[in-house]
C-alpha cells in the first residue's frame, strides 16, 4: 500500500480562525484524516513541529517573533508544498498595522514588563521569509477552499483559486449594488471573491478581508469614495485594514494618507 501523504498545520501569529476552518469541516475533516496522515496539527492533537518529509504544510499566521523567523525556515526545508492560509500568513494580518507605528512604545504602553514579551518590530507575510507554493486568502479562509486545495493536490493537480473581484460574485447572486444604491464605501471592486460576497448580500459594504483581486484599480475606487464625501484619512483606513500589507492596498493607503512611510 502506498504511504499516505504527510500533512502538517502550523500556527504562527494569528487568531486560530483559519485552523478552525479545518476543525469546523465536520465530516469532511474525518474523511480527510483517512486520506492523509496529519503529522503536526497541535489543535487537533498531532505534535511533531519540525517533522521531516512533509508533503503539504499549511501555515496559519504571520511572522512576528524571533522564534517564528527561525521556525518557518525549518518547516520550509522539510515541506514539498507550502500553503499559506489566511490574511496573516499571506499578507501579515491586521497585526501588521504595527509596521507603520512605534513598536517599542506600543509594547511599553500595553505590557507592564515588555522585556518578557518576544515580538518583532514588524509582522510580515510568510512569503517575505520563504518560498510559498500557494496562497489561500481570506480572513478567515473558507473551509471549502482549503478542502478543494487539498483534494486537487491529492489528485496531482494544481489548485485553482479564483481571483475575480467580489463584484462578480454579487452579480452572480443578483445582489443590489451597495455602492450605487446606498453610497456605501464597499471594497468589493478591488477585493477577491471566495467569501461568497456575504457582506454585500446582507446590505453592507465589503471590507476587503479576502485581499486584493486581480488587477484592482484601487486609486479609482478611493477617488470615487472621495467624490462621495469621504475624507482621505478614512479612505486610507479602508485600505489599511485586515490586509494592510498587501502591496497594492498598502500603496493606496499611503497615497490617500499623503504620508510616505518607509520601514525596513
Amino acid at each position, binding site marked *: 500500500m502506498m504511504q499516505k501523504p504527510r500533512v502538517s498545520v502550523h*500556527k504562527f*501569529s*494569528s*487568531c*486560530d*480562525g*483559519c*485552523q*478552525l476552518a479545518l*476543525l*469546523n469541516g*465536520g*465530516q469532511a*475533516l*474525518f474523511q480527510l*484524516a*483517512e486520506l492523509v496522515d*496529519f503529522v503536526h496539527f*497541535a*489543535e*487537533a*492533537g*498531532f*505534535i511533531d*513541529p519540525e517533522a521531516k518529509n512533509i508533503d503539504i504544510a499549511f501555515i496559519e499566521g504571520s511572522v*512576528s*517573533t524571533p522564534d*517564528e523567523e527561525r521556525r518557518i525556515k525549518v518547516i520550509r526545508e522539510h515541506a514539498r508544498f507550502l500553503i499559506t492560509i489566511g490574511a496573516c500568513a499571506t499578507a501579515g*494580518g*491586521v*497585526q501588521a*498595522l*504595527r509596521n507603520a*507605528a512605534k513598536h517599542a512604545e*506600543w*509594547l511599553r*504602553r*500595553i*505590557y507592564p514588563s515588555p522585556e518578557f*514579551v*518576544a*515580538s518583532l518590530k514588524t*509582522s510580515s507575510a510568510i512569503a517575505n521569509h520563504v518560498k510559498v507554493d500557494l496562497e489561500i486568502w481570506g*480572513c*478567515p479562509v473558507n473551509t471549502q477552499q482549503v478542502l478543494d486545495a487539498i483534494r486537487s493536490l491529492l489528485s496531482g493537480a494544481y489548485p485553482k483559486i479564483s481571483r475575480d473581484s467580489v463584484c462578480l460574485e454579487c452579480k452572480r447572486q443578483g445582489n443590489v449594488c451597495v455602492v450605487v444604491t446606498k453610497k456605501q464605501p464597499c471594497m468589493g471592486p478591488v477585493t477577491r471573491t471566495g*467569501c*461568497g460576497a*456575504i*457582506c454585500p*448580500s*446582507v*446590505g*453592507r459594504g465589503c*471590507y476587503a*478581508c479576502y485581499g486584493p483581486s486581480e488587477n484592482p484599480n484601487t486609486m479609482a475606487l478611493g477617488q470615487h469614495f472621495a467624490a462621495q464625501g469621504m475624507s482621505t484619512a*478614512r479612505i486610507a*483606513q479602508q485600505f489599511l*485594514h*485586515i490586509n494592510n500589507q498587501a502591496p497594492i492596498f498598502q500603496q493606496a493607503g499611503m497615497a490617500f494618507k499623503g504620508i510616505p512611510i518607509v520601514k525596513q
Partner: protein
Amino acid sequence: MSNNNKTRSIEVPILARVEGEGALSIQIKGQTIKSLQLKIYEPPRFFEKLLEGRHYDEVLDFVARICGICPVAYQMSAAQAIESCFEVTITPWIREMRRLFYCGEWLESHSLHVHFLAAPDFLGFNSAPEMAKHHPEVLRRGLRLQALGNALVTLLGGGARFILWGHVLVVSIKPQVR
C-alpha cells in the same frame, strides 16, 4: 518507598488540543509539586493600540480577529462598550437576538471542545480522528451540535463567523434566513 525524594520534571513544549498556544513545565520531588509553570507564548498582536484612531463602526470587524474561536464574545463586548459611549439603549428584541447569537457560538465552540479537544484525553486517544474509529457516535453527536451552533452564528451573523449585522448602531436589521 525508595523513590520518595527523587526529583522528576515534566516538560510539555506544546500543549495539544487547546485553543491557542501554551507550554507546561512541572518539577516534582517525591509526591510534591515543587514548581509548576504554564507559559502562554501566544505573540502579542497589539489590538489595544491598533484600534486607536479608527472609526467606531470598524471596531467590531477588528475585535472579531482577536480570537477566531470566540469572535462573538469580543464583538458583543465591543458593541456594549460603544453603545455605552453613545448612551444607546438597545431594545429587548436586539438583546434576545444577541443572546441567541452568543448561544450559537457557545454551542459550536463548546461542542468542539468537549468532543474533539477534551474527550480523547478521557477515553485514552491521541486525537479525535483516532477516537472516531472506536467511538464514531460520540464524534457524530459532536459534529451535529457543532453544526447547529454554526447554523445559528451564520443566521445571526449574516453569513459568516466574523460579521455582525453591519454596524453597531444599526443592529435592528433583521437577520435574513438563507
